[in-house]
């Protein structure tokens, strides 16, 4: 066996193993979700009536595709309202994370080089801490007579407890908190690479610091803004834990609806239809993210 032949064989194996794994555990499951979304729910275990039993019945299957679940999603305001609500919360989360994350990333990128490594670790550290723990930490702060109420009352700012837990504000706070590192890291990566000489040039040519920021720094950090926004927005739309624990009865996000259809109502086909529509909603931001990533790959 020649060395080239064995190299090729090994090379093929390197590609094939993760490829097959992902096809089996990522791609096929999505095909199954799609199929399930087109099934009817049934009082059985597992609770659905399968519609598709191999290629032979493909014709029959296509003739009785059941769009009932999607019709239900379109007709019942509960569903499309919770989609819209999720998009709104995700958009607000993205904007707030940008408002807090940009100055933070900018300050980190401006810090002396020997500090930057440790600053990064401190941004990532809470991200590595359990999601559940971080949300739980906010319950302790926001609950009636919790830390926030106690300190505001102690300072004499509020006379009676604020009802913050189980509100939309609490959900937003928890979301921004949990997703902030996803915003800060890509922003930091672009801002750190920014050529400071350009800012000096702008200043030499008489630009005020704000003008220099708006005409030089901001446009150049746009790739970081887009990547960070997509990384926050996409998972935020389908978030379940935060609206469930920090939200109230009126903060019905779509992830919570899917969870409820699946675990409480045991309507697997409907839950699958919710998932399919959720993915369709996310296609555009996903494509934008992938394009930003490809452009970065080209650049390096």
């Amino acid at each position: 066996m020649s060395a080239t032949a064995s190299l090729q064989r090994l090379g093929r194996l390197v590609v094939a193993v993760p490829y097959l794994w992902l096809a089996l555990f990522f791609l096929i499951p999505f095909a199954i979700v799609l199929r399930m979304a087109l099934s009817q729910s049934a009082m059985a275990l597992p609770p659905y009536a399968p519609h598709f039993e191999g290629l032979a019945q493909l014709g029959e299957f296509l003739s009785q595709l059941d769009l009932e679940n999607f019709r239900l999603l379109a007709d019942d305001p509960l569903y499309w309202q919770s989609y819209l609500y999720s998009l709104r919360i995700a958009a607000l989360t993205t904007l707030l994370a940008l408002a807090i994350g940009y100055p933070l990333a900018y300050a980190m990128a401006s810090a002396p080089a020997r500090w930057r490594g440790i600053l990064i670790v401190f941004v990532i550290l809470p991200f590595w801490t359990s999601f559940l723990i971080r949300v739980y930490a906010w319950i302790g702060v926001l609950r009636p007579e919790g830390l926030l109420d106690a300190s505001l009352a102690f300072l004499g700012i509020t006379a009676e407890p604020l009802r913050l837990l189980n509100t939309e504000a609490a959900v937003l706070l928890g979301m921004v908190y949990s997703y902030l590192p996803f915003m800060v890291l890509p922003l930091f990566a672009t801002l750190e690479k920014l050529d400071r000489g350009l800012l000096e040039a702008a200043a030499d040519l008489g630009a005020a610091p704000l003008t220099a920021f708006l005409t030089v720094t901001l446009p150049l950090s746009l790739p970081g803004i887009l990547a960070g926004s997509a990384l926050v927005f996409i998972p935020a739309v389908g978030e379940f834990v935060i609206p469930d624990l920090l939200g109230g009865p009126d903060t019905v996000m779509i992830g919570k609806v899917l969870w409820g259809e699946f675990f409480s109502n045991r309507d697997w086909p409907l839950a699958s239809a919710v998932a399919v529509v959720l993915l369709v909603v996310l296609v555009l931001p996903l494509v934008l993210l992938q394009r930003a990533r490809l452009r970065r790959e080209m650049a390096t």
Partner: protein
Amino acid sequence: MTRLGPGLILALVVGFAFLYLPILTLVAYSFNASRLVTVWGGFSTHWYGALLQNEPLLDAAWLSIRLGFVSATLATILGTLAALALARHGRFAGRTLFSGMVLAPLVMPEVVTGLSLLLLFVGTEVERGFWTVTIAHATFSLGFACIVVQSRLAGFDRSLEEAAQDLGATPFVTFWTVTLPLIWPAVAAAWMLAFTLSLDDLVIASFTTGPGATTLPMRLYSAVKLGVSPEINAACTIMIAAVAVVVIAASLLLKRQQATSG
């Protein structure tokens, strides 16, 4: 180097206070002698003692650790292979699909990933439990592991591998004696990331688990649903400490790697 003005220092202080204050409060109240979370009853390690008596919680923690261990190992092997495929095999058939599949789980809503894997497991009539959760975790943390290893491979001196092959080493021997020793800090960091991701996951585990396999986040979640208690604070504090140790170890590893690769 630029000087940090007062505005930027304020941004750092506010940003980091926002990130850390809630967690610090949680840790502080785990040492509270009083059961009431609002009243400070003096320093006590009582709740840590109570944890040791909490059998279901300890069982769940042990399960999560084993699960994290196996799934992180799987994810690291697959992620490293995927990184090698993307970094070394230029263009191959289906490359776009492949990189999409590697990276999509990073941003995919967890409810969708969990639901889709559960439907696969139900459809193939696999008994659900430890191994189904392990597969699910390996699948979604594979992409994270891949990114970590890929960034290391990007700054890699290919001539070392070529030299080894010119001297007659087979590709496998080259990988084992040249490539792996050079990228192992990134591989170790990838493993740690995959391990904490597995330890952290509630949603995907809830979908893909079966009877008898209740993970630590699932236990914590049902406890949190009932309300705040100092015992949960104590459990969380232990997890935070464990993660902090792992992250600091990982960043030291990466730092050493950067120092050696100069």
